[in-house]
């Protein structure tokens, strides 16, 4: 689960480019161990991690490719998460789904993390992939833009 908005990601570490197709590593400024070690995701029970009697929404998740590297698309961040380990042949989608679920369950999805600042209504910090999630959005205030003065005219 997330350590909170100030601890989860050190945004000073990231190096944003102007290219299209920004991936998770660029947004968060870091990588995650399960991108490199299949042993960290091997034991994930996909069936138990999703609603219903089959894979439910994971049925639409497949192994894809970003920058020539195998990757899984994280729809909650609108970014790809690259997978740097060798994936056993015939198990491409399975490992893509397991890496994604691990990423979500550990609270590392950048788009989900943004809930700390932008969630307008009380809701679970993480989604249905984790029970007993913390609540965010209880004290939302309208955002203000620094140095913005409504009386200012161009």
């Amino acid at each position, binding site marked *: 689960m997330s350590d909170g908005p100030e601890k989860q990601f050190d945004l000073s570490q990231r190096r944003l480019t102007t290219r299209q197709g920004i991936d998770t590593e660029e947004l968060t400024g870091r990588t995650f161990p399960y991108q490199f070690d299949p042993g960290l995701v091997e034991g994930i029970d996909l069936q138990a991690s*999703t*609603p219903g009697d089959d894979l439910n929404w994971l049925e639409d998740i497949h192994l894809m490719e970003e920058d020539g590297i195998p990757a899984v698309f994280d*729809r909650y961040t609108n970014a790809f998460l690259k997978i740097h380990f060798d994936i056993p042949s015939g198990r491409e989608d399975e490992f893509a789904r397991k890496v994604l679920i691990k990423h979500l369950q550990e609270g590392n999805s950048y788009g989900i993390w943004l809930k700390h600042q932008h969630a307008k209504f009380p809701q679970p910090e993480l989604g249905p992939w984790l029970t007993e999630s913390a609540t965010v959005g209880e004290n939302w205030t309208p955002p203000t833009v620094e140095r913005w003065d409504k009386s200012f005219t161009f």
Partner: protein
Amino acid sequence: MVAMNPPTEQDTRGVRNDIRGLAEPDAEAPKVARIEGGTATFDAADLSPRLVNLELRRLVYGEGVREIRVENPGAKHSIAVGLLARCRITINGSLGYFGATLGDGPEIHITGRVGWSVAENMMSGVVVIDKNAGSLTGAAMRGGDLVVRGHVGARTGIDQKGGTIIIGGNAGSMTGFMMQRGRQIICGDVGPGMGDSMYDGAIYVGGTVAALGVDCVEEELTPDDEELLDRKLGIYRMDRPDTFRKFVCGKQLYNYDNLEPSERKLVL
């Protein structure tokens, strides 16, 4: 406390919205549910949609209840919306429009009928409707299973981006209009314009098709398709028609040889 909007015309009707557009911003969960052994039941007859939803959120988020039964929903609109946790909700009756929308995780069973746009924008979960549904069923759905045991109106799965829509009866015109991903399984007949301007995904039809839409073509079923049909209809205990036909995008309207990254993400 969230700031309130300046007075609007709505205020004269006694309805207030805060700066987020939230109606009845000061409303609190009515706490009328009876909780017994992890299961909660409450009567929605005298509750506004806002209060019904607040009570559902209190039970799921606050009390950790995972089994809820709602009695007398009275065809109210926008019930059981925006629930972002695993839970099972049975709504004993019918809903109006935009029922069970924006869900990410809940498994919702509606024993009656539903109006427009049921399960619109569902991210994950299961929504089962025992009777008929109106138009725009599963509009812009992203994932999960949406099951209608009866008939549905027009534009089922319009702009669908994922998930599986399963219809036990017939579907109206423009089914799968601008569909981008996902699957539709329709056991009965389908009206004209099916799959018009669909971009990707598959529509399986057990009955007849009045007319195909622009750039929708028939394709051979594969063993994977047969497995999907058997699995989904088996899970929801629905009779499988003897034969199914599969319809997909003909890709004659594709304007891009290689999708730009941002455009590519829009359909993922």
